[in-house]
């Protein structure tokens, strides 16, 4: 079990697309280390035979009919967008200029 190093925090923040500051990296690393220590107890509590519960109230086979329902209008869809153009959401370039 690896400990929560600043490097790990940077890696996780990268996965989560959060541009953390160096100060935050240090702070989170120590806080998370404490938390992780305490939550690590769960591993000891369970054995392989125990089945995981992903849904607290068991249910299955909830489907809907393949019938078209009203959509939002284009204006409603774009109403919260920071930027849009010709009916589409506008975002900065996806790749760095190489």
């Amino acid at each position, binding site marked *: *079990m690896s400990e*929560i190093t600043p490097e*790990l*925090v940077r890696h*996780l*923040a990268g*996965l*989560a*697309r*959060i*541009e*953390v*500051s160096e100060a*935050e990296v240090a*702070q*989170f690393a120590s*806080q*998370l280390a*404490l*938390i*992780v220590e*305490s*939550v*690590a*107890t*769960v*591993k000891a*509590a*369970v054995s392989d035979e*125990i*089945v*995981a*519960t*992903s*849904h*607290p*109230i068991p*249910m299955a086979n*909830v489907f*809907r009919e393949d019938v078209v329902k009203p959509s*939002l209008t284009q204006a*409603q*869809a774009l*109403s*919260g*967008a*920071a*930027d849009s153009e010709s009916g589409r*959401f506008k*975002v*900065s*370039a*996806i*790749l*760095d*200029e190489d």
Partner: protein
Amino acid sequence: MSVLNKSAHELASMLASKEISSVELTKAQLDNIDNLNPKLNSYLIVTHELALAQAREVDELRAKGEKLSALAGVPIAVKDNLTTIGIETTAGSKILKGWVPPYNATVVEKVLAHRMPILGKTNLDEFAMGSSTENSAYGPSLNPWDLARTPGGSGGGSSSAVASMQAPLALGSDTGGSIRFPAAVTGTVGVKPTYGAVSRYGLIALGSSLDQVGPVTRNVMDAAMLQDAIAGHDQMDATSLPESLGSMTEAAKNDSVKGLKIGIIKELTGEGFQSGVSERFQEALDLLVAAGAEIVEVSCPSFQYAIAAYYLIQPAEASSNLARFDSVRFGLRVMPEGAATVEKVMAATREEGFGAEVKRRIILGTYALSSGYYDAYYGSAQKVRTLIQADLAKAFEKADVLVSPTAPTTAFLLGEKQEDPLAMYLNDIATIPANLAGIPGMSLPVGLASEDNLPVGAQFLAPARQDARLYKVGAVLEKFLENKWSKSMLDFAPELKVN
């Protein structure tokens, strides 16, 4: 007694008999909000015009003799993590500042269908992560019992509003205790229904397998009526229960606990609990025993892992639920300097838009799910749920309802638990198991702790789908306590000095 102090069910009768109009009531409510909210910060947004327009409409319909639902015309506050058309919805976060949803949460649709004027959106810890509202990007709410203290969280806005007569009742959400803990520390009633009893469509998700919407009120009958109004199957929510759980309003008319078996959860008593809290809790139990209930002791050993499991599952699900806040389709967009790629814009936006606790939990959740660690963390935590459900099932063989103090302490001071996230998490020790297991829980006020004269809450738990049991026992206990006090819990509250 001012109309502001009346219960929602009393107001409902008065409206029905035209003793008062919805406009009068709503206006009085709005005036009180304008008076108190600048200090208490219970509401993030107050919708004066909208509420009055809705009130007017109800009055007109009533004048015409239209048949209206029981709660029609009673104004309500809505936690700001429920989407509302035309009303800014922030989830207490900077990243959603100014966002106006194009759709209503299902529970909001129901509230509107019941013609309850919406007074505004209440404050919460950012994305419902927290136990005090100190994590809100818009400042904390204050506890009307002591303005130096927090009203609990995450739903502290709703609880402080209801406790200070800024609303007769409110909608909240509960993931690990976010309705019940604030209820306990503000002397109000809060219920987390069975998972799936109330639709989550339109509730900004925190922990999808844990979240439930529920009532925040001043008494048990009001909670029952509100739960009845918002509960029911929703085809927009695949996890919503197909069947109705029956009438909570009828259950809340119960007047006897003879033969009721009440299980005290061994692991939720004793040392970790403030002595004043334990005292009031014990007295409440004595009252029930005197009325014919039977106390049994039950043990749920897996509860020792509950907080650990919760603080793995919830951040894991949250880390995924919050990924959508990326500047592309709605919400904040921060443009870093220079020519930035969309990835950089996303990262800069999330860095600035999320508060520290949210970032912390996202990173923790990402860790719990990451390859190599899934089995040890998230996977194991989901197994702990199975153990907890098994322990509870065994306990419910011996008892009809289980009971514990809702929280280990009374309301804490602003800033008291900010240094140590772990300390904050421990508030939830008694409330978390219900979310992990999906069972319903109710907190109701049982008195003031002698050390600090602050409210104490007792929590009742029932098996999944047996929410009615909570209302049955809650109604009786409340009646006994109010008889004992000759007043209601909130009558004990000190006068609010906000100016």
